[in-house]
């Protein structure tokens, strides 16, 4: 395996709505800042890969416009996934492992404020047996939350504690959208938004973008004093039908964590992109994190949830903490599909 590291990371603030900027305009300053941070231009990138969703823009091939932020002339070697940018990073990592590239630019962007996100997400469900019923994201997540609550897998108090912790951490994150001094008691006093979920159990709807530069071997050492080496990366998908899955655990996260080698050493920092509090608890357990791991120092997805960039940003948030020496070993998580259907786990280490 080639040594591949994260050597650059920038992101936009998570905003409930970006009324005045389109997706490309949100992305341009992010890519520009990344160029300044790394000293690299698009011409220095052997490979470029992005993650976004045409369903958010409501038109096919909308992702192509994202290239305007990067520049497609002279011609670039480029790809796209209709997934969170974390999966675009996986594709770039594979490309580098194959020897086709030494450097890669990865970005993710989304502007869900253009539509009614909870209902737009119904379009990712089985098109015949589920989608025509239009179950929204809150309803789907609520089925899983109630299952976990009534089976004694977790409690309302634990869910509220996850939200309070993340939004407290987010006070130190200028890019976070929902932050402050939340308390378990205060959250439990909230009315249900969609029984059994309260507003604080749900990640916000966020517009935003983020970008990462990957580099291999000596190129990474040239570009960073302390590269964040990717020591393990894996993603696993479960069946789409909720009825055939064990909703009380995240099996695919467990499997991805084992393959990525999460348990091989102490994890200093974990960044999770679970969009609901009960899901964050399930992911934390699936990763086997203990009390010596600081979970979501940035606030995680519950503090800022720029769809299609939120998972990539978790990898970036881990990398920045390795660069600074705050962490030696970190794990980032990204998710896709209903009720944690598909999960990506990435282990990063400093030298």
């Amino acid at each position, binding site marked *: 395996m080639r040594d591949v590291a994260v050597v650059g990371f920038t992101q936009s603030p998570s905003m409930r709505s970006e009324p005045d900027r389109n997706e490309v305009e949100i992305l341009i300053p992010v890519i520009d800042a990344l160029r300044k941070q790394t000293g690299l231009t698009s011409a220095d990138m052997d490979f470029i890969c992005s993650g976004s969703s045409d369903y958010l823009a409501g038109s096919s091939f909308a992702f192509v416009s994202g290239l305007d932020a990067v520049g497609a002339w002279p011609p670039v070697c480029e790809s796209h996934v209709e997934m969170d940018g974390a999966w675009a990073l996986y594709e770039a990592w594979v490309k580098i492992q194959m020897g086709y590239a030494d450097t890669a630019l990865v970005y993710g962007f989304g502007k869900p404020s253009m539509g*009614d996100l*909870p*209902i737009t997400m*119904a379009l990712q469900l*089985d098109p*015949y*047996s*589920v989608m*025509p*019923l*239009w*179950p*929204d994201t*809150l*309803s*789907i*997540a*609520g*089925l*899983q*939350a*109630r*299952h976990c609550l*009534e089976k004694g897998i977790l409690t309302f108090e634990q869910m509220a504690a996850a939200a309070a912790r993340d939004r407290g951490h987010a006070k130190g994150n200028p890019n976070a959208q929902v932050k402050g001094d939340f308390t378990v008691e205060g959250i439990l006093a909230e009315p*249900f938004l*969609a*029984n*059994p*979920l309260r507003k604080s159990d749900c990640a916000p709807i966020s517009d935003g973008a983020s970008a990462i530069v990957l580099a291999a071997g000596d190129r990474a050492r040239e570009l960073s004093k302390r590269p964040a080496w990717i020591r393990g990366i894996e993603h696993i998908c479960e*069946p789409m*039908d*909720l*009825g*055939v899955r064990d*909703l009380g655990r995240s099996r695919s996260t467990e499997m991805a964590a084992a393959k990525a080698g999460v348990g091989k050493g102490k994890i200093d920092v974990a960044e999770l992109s679970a969009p609901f509090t009960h899901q964050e608890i399930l992911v934390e357990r699936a990763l086997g994190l203990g009390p010596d791991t600081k979970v979501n120092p940035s606030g995680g997805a519950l503090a800022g949830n720029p769809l299609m960039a939120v998972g990539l940003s978790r990898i970036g948030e881990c990398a920045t903490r390795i660069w600074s020496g705050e962490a030696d070993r970190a794990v980032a998580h990204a998710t896709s599909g209903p009720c944690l259907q598909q999960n990506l786990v990435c282990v990063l280490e400093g030298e």
Partner: protein
Amino acid sequence: MSPTLEKALTAPHKLEYTYKRSLGPVLSPFFTALRDRRILGVKRRDGRVMVPPKEYDPDTSESLDELVEVSDEGVVTSWSWVATPRRQQPLDRPFAYALVKLDGADTAFLHVVDAGDEGNMETGMRVKARWADETTGMITDFVFVPA
């Protein structure tokens, strides 16, 4: 002289898929049965019955094709409440999405329960299908109501 617009060519434009898609050997009978107010599942090799049916076993990836009829009554295994339905959703009054394990099935089925009030919902409650007057072979041919 500027050209007149009377002679401008026009053509009808209808946004649609101009092809028909077969639902395949498992989902096709499932939806055809819904039209006849019957619900089918598929039997896995170990005998467990999955509803809605799939062509493949989600754990072993084996091909599946043994369809069996299950009841249109069953038990709610989890639910969430929609207080303010969106215009796309199947009912225009508050309702529940629920996982329903039908009698004769081993997996739960995501569907709608027209329960009237949130207070009427409870995990473990029994529900039965209320079929539309005219069924069309769609998943929306029925909703569940408390049995």
